[in-house]
């Protein structure tokens, strides 16, 4: 049965046919939350380094790719994270407004698996200063299986 929320869904289904190289994702905006810094730092064993200065741990916003995906796609079975890279340009601070946007830089079937790569950048939303560039490569799960 189709729910009212499903009927109102305007995003594309997360599946190989809908992922295309060059597709722009975002932007998304957020403010770096002090509570998130505290939780993330404690979860990765780094609380004493970051909490004093309100600096976000280096990969705290790595999951921005998921926000970018969710803005454009729905459903799907998720994926398996295969590779990642980060270039750090400036620290993120508590209370800082950030804009993140990206694009799909790779979408291909290789050795029976469907890989996609998203490159994304986060900037200070007010000054435009580049904070971090990064990319995720993942294997898309199709119907729950590594396709």
């Amino acid at each position, binding site marked *: 049965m189709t729910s009212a929320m499903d009927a109102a869904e305007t995003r594309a289904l997360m599946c190989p046919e809908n992922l295309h190289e060059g597709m722009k994702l975002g932007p998304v905006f957020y403010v770096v939350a002090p509570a998130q810094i505290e939780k993330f730092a404690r979860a990765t064993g780094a609380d004493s380094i970051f909490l004093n200065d309100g600096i976000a741990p280096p990969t705290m916003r790595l999951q921005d790719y998921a926000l970018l995906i969710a803005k454009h796609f729905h459903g799907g079975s998720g994926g398996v994270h295969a590779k990642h890279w*980060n270039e750090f340009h400036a620290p993120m601070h508590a209370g800082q407004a950030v804009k993140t946007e990206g694009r799909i830089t790779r979408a291909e079937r290789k050795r029976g698996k469907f890989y996609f790569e998203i490159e994304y950048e986060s900037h200070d939303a007010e000054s435009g200063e580049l904070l971090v560039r990064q990319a995720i490569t993942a294997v898309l799960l199709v119907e729950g299986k590594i396709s």
Partner: protein
Amino acid sequence: MSDLISKPFQLDAAAAIAYEEGVEGPPRRTPRVNIHTDDAAARKAGFRAPIAGGEQTYAVMATFLVKSFGLDFLRGGRLQAALIKPVFYGDTLTMHARALDGDAGPLQLEVWTENQLGERVLVGTARVPRKST
């Protein structure tokens, strides 16, 4: 530079829950059921049990680099890594770094993470601004 080795980090269920609380994911209509949370979903994808998120393994390596080289790593540092074996809840991870080159330019490192069996689960490289070393 001699090889660097971290203290052991146990990625148990409590650490995974703490990590989930420390990231901002998309809002969900239903509880998360996937290879990280559900036995059946993990087996269907080819794993013997639910696996920890690769992002957390990657985050622990990034934190190790900041602990080792200071916050200057966040101005000009780089990390790239492949997640080559699954990490299961309860695994104990140890992070390693080894210098690759000489004295000029940024410090180039080979980095890897081992589980409690000595198996590499993450392999990659890192660049550290020389001023922070």
